[in-house]
């Protein structure tokens, strides 16, 4: 392991949900491939993040990857004290604050939202869809907005319910909320509340509505509900981190993860819907990828 140590911080557990586990898997794969010694920290709350980052950096960890946008404040605070350590953030970052040792892989959530809105609108028979999120964080609010735009792009008179449950872990509440919106007429749900998504999937399953899986292909878990899943290409992003690190090229940049650069995609084939939905959506994605169209 002469390449040194890399570490990753997760807000939850690497064995739970659909955000941390695939992230951890990609991280582990990357470390093995590039010969780093991997270590990771679960339940790294934002409160403790500065301390953790300092501990890792002062131990000589070469690269510290933070698997959530909420760590950016902590990185900006700590990175300047440890110029020899590379800090990396995955998810979303608006700026790296002129730091030479802070790099971000920022998913284009606008595009992401736009596409999932489009799928939902195209698939909806009742012209009524819903997005259910956990905590009301800036990226989620923005996603709501772009989801609605995407939906309207395909079905101008679509109705969209947007609900924040206030928790990324409360499965029961998410399920309750989902049941509520289904009974009010929504037939396509967009779960985006992390661990609590399980509740939304079940509600859809039980009430006969459909959903889109988030971040990874979840169709095996909820075959009756899921039309398709958005799949973040964690492997690609993490691999880039490893590569740039090895080459000493990390620093100061924000890499956008988009459809165009294969930063994320959709799982195929679509289920439970007409084939023309799939065609329409992929046509839209194509335009987005080619830059012929902007998500707004």
């Amino acid at each position, binding site marked *: 392991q002469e390449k040194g140590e890399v*570490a990753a911080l997760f807000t939850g*557990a690497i064995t739970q949900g659909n955000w941390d586990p695939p992230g951890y898997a990609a991280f582990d794969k990357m470390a093995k491939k590039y010969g780093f010694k991997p*270590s*990771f*920290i*679960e*339940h*790294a*709350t*934002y*409160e*403790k993040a*500065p*301390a*953790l980052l*300092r*501990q*890792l950096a*002062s*131990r000589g960890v070469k690269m510290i990857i933070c698997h959530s*946008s*909420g760590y*950016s*404040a902590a990185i900006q*605070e700590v990175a300047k*004290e440890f110029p020899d350590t590379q800090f990396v953030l995955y998810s*979303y*970052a*608006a*700026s790296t604050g002129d730091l030479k040792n802070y790099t971000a892989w920022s998913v284009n959530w606008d595009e992401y939202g736009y596409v999932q809105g489009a799928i939902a609108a195209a698939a909806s028979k009742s012209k009524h869809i819903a997005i259910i999120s956990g*905590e*009301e*964080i*800036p*990226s989620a609010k923005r996603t709501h907005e772009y989801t609605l735009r995407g939906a309207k792009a395909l079905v101008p008179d679509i109705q969209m319910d947007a609900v924040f449950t*206030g928790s990324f872990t409360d499965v029961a509440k998410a399920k309750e909320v989902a049941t509520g919106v289904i009974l009010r007429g929504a037939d396509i749900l967009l779960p985006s509340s992390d661990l609590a998504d399980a509740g939304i999937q079940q509600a859809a399953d039980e009430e006969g509505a459909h959903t889109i899986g988030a971040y990874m292909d979840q169709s095996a878990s909820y075959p009756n509900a899921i039309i398709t899943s958005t799949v973040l290409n964690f492997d690609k992003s993490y691999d880039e981190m490893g590569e740039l690190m090895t080459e000493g090229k990390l620093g100061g940049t924000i890499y956008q993860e988009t459809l165009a650069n294969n930063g994320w995609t959709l799982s195929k084939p679509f289920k439970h819907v007409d084939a023309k939905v799939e065609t329409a959506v992929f046509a839209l994605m194509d335009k987005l990828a080619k830059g012929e169209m902007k998500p707004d």
Partner: protein
Amino acid sequence: MNSIFSPRASSVIARTRQSISAVTANNAFLVLSAFASSIAIGLFILSFLGVAPQLAFAVMFDGAFGSQRAIADTLVFMTPRLLTALAALVALRCGFFNLGAEGQLQLGAIGAVLPATILPASLGYMLLPISIVCGSLFGAVWGLIPAVLKLWRGADEIIVTLMMNFIAIYLVKYLVQGPLQPPDSDFNMSAKITDGAALPILLSGTRLHAGVVLAGVVALAVWFMLYHTTFGVRLRAAGLSPRAARLQGMPLSQLILSSMMISGGIAGIGGAVEVLGVQYRLIDGFSSNLGFDGLAIALLGSLEPLGSVIVAIYFGAINSGTLALQSALSIPAALAQIMASLPIIFLACIHGYRFLKGRPLWSSTR
């Protein structure tokens, strides 16, 4: 008259007080063994998870006390907990069961972040005292509410303070999601505080901020207040025996109000210190149960400022030690929770058992 003091508060103080009044070698041994056995159980679980206990202990100790940085971390984790413990202690010693340190701390954080982000940077280092005082005021007002409700409507303080914790937590959530969130934010948090408002770092290369000194000063002040001022004696008398205190003409309502104001104010300083010394902004979920930790610390520290300092250091060390475990050995964070909770339970049992066996000598004040 008696109704503004809960018998359970008096009973808790009396029991906790009396068990310390006979601190013996034997007693100290039991307390130490509660901590030691908690660590031992933690290490046992680790060995079950395949980590050699010696290694784990070494990593943990190293992470808590092994270096300047480690000690600094321990102290930084200790600071807000010591402050909430002192807050709980002041209220309890006056017979008011304040379970609301959590909420008062949240308000303190709000109070500190407002001047620290809004006032002009030209105020320079004046911003720091302004922010701390403002945080402490917010906490004090939040602490006064349950006291006023109790005196005015006889509302049970346990339920009121519990509810107000939730209200405060959602208030912070609301603020960092809306009014206080700067436009280009990545997360639910306020803008960064102005440099002049930040607590100075005491030891460069560590995150040891001046808040720890502040906490120490508050602990000293609380101790002085309790044992060396008229107000302190009155407060203790009222807490232990409101009827006797009243008969000697002590103004009970005033005592309750002042002690809750002080209690809230101290918890508020706790929140301010977290904002001005650690997070540099108001951030959603910044307090992982600091308030309840504080209450437990105060009770385990026998409602004594010095005792609280010692127990708070243990809590700080467990936090930094298990953090080191996490970062060095990728041990689940759950272990920290287990190791922090066990001494609470063990110590409570020891206190209780000694009470049952009538050693030290006392029966309840009821």
